């Protein structure tokens, strides 16, 4: 679209600028207050810090038990991503390649599993896990989160495989490849970008997940980074400077991860929602 009238452009810029301010202002508040003392924050939350002292960050690191949290968060996210991508790719292959008469039914089933509230199985699952002694076990919790992420991941990967020409499968078949070999040596290398997109989205979901993680990862030893922060923030009389430093520690890695892999994030979020 070519626009010659400068007024709409100015208005667009103003509105977008306003939305930028709305999006960023709370995050800026976190950053400036992470360097202030509790008294300074109560005095004026909008004032700039006197100095860039890192004491708050040190206190937050121990207060939020982040050295444990980092390990748990990474293990939880890693396991979830591995399980989701592995099972997702394996399930997507036959769903994309065979003429499945009941494909409509399968879609409906996946859609239902997205729709069903976690609460429906969360409670019985919790008491089952408690009896099995799996509360606080990151790998067991990762299985639940992977199961929740699977339906959408399978759908995404299936659409991805549909873009790979079937002639390649036929060629592999003529060369005597088994279905597994076709998957392993033909399809899998070609669907790698799809797998990476799914991995990025699932790792973000897992890192930020609250309901399941807070229910199943109880006890300090099982805390992820966000849960450690939650416990610290929920303490009786929290020091806000330390709390905001903790918030920084929790959000900065995600922001860095996001900025580094933006394209993949946006592809993953829009895939499925936009046909094209």
């Amino acid at each position, binding site marked *: 679209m070519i626009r010659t009238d400068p007024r709409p452009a100015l208005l667009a810029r103003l*509105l977008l600028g306003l939305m930028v301010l709305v*999006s960023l202002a709370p995050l800026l508040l976190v950053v400036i207050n992470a360097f202030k003392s509790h008294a300074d924050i109560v005095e004026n939350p909008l004032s700039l810090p006197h100095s860039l002292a890192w004491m708050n960050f040190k206190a937050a690191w121990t207060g939020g038990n982040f050295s444990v949290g980092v390990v748990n968060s990474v293990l939880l996210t890693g396991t979830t991503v591995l399980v989701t991508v592995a099972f997702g790719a394996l399930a997507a292959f036959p769903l994309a390649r065979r003429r499945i008469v009941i494909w409509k039914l399968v879609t409906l089933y996946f*859609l239902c599993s997205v729709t069903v509230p976690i609460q429906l199985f969360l*409670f019985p699952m919790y008491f089952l896990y408690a009896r099995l002694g799996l509360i606080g076990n990151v790998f067991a919790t990762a299985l639940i989160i992977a199961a929740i992420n699977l339906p959408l991941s399978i759908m995404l990967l299936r659409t991805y495989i549909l873009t790979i020409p079937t002639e390649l499968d036929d060629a592999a078949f003529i060369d005597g490849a088994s279905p597994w070999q076709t998957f392993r040596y033909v399809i899998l290398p070609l669907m790698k970008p799809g797998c990476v997109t799914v991995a990025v989205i699932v790792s973000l979901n897992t890192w930020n997940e609250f309901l399941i993680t807070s229910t199943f990862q109880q006890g300090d030893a099982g805390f992820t980074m966000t849960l450690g922060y*939650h416990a610290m923030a929920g303490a009786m009389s929290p020091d806000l400077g330390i709390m905001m430093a903790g918030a920084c520690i*929790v959000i900065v890695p995600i922001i860095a991860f996001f900025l580094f892999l933006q394209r993949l994030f946006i592809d993953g979020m*829009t895939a499925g*929602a*936009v046909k094209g």
Partner: protein
Amino acid sequence: MILVPALLTVMLAFTDWDGVSMPVWLGLENFRDLLNDITFWRAIFNNVKWTIIFLTVPMAIALVVASLLLTRRRSQSVYQSIFLLPYILSPIANASIWSNMIFDQRSGVLGYFSRHLLPLHDPLGHVSTALYTVASVDIWHFWGYLAVVFFAAMRQVPTEQLEAAYLEGAGGWQIFRHITLPNILPTIALMFVMVTIFSFLTFDYVFLMTGGGPAHSTELLSTLAYGFAFRSFEVGKATAVALFMSVFGLMAAYAYVWMSRESLQQ
């Protein structure tokens, strides 16, 4: 294999179970209790309100912003990343930032304003404003996602159509109304369904910021179920509430399958 655990879970809704001992069959008593419980009705009402808010406010913001982004060819990707920042952060961090740095009477920006400019209440502490306040924080976190999705859809609009309309002298609104909007309608429909489903499942922000209070004014079906299960250990009743949530979600899912029945044929 899949059906058995699902059915077992559904059966729990008809029992009295504290999570440890054997479930006791109750029949329809949980449902009768719920239907007589004013908090349950309030939760449903709040969920409906939440759905209506989310189907209008973030949708409108996202549509406007996405169409504005089309006009900013060089900076659009920078804007996109900024608008997505709240969306990618964890609800725990977002909720705590808003509660402590903005709404809190002692330490928040609102508290600061009410001491120095004009007295303002903590909007989270009031029955009449709490739900809208939590909803605005959730919208702050969520709208960027919608904007990015709509923007991606708008970029797929065939340029020939846009150019033709432009050459015929159509204005910005006319182009949006007659070309962009019909082209992205499938995406809008999908987001409508998604938002409806997620509105009935929504939990994080309400639980983290108000826990359903004050005086149940922000109670949703999800927080109600959570409270039944983990505060009063009435797991059967909690499951019954979750069943209600599923019904609403399934209705939305059914609507979606019905809408997209043509594209599912392939």
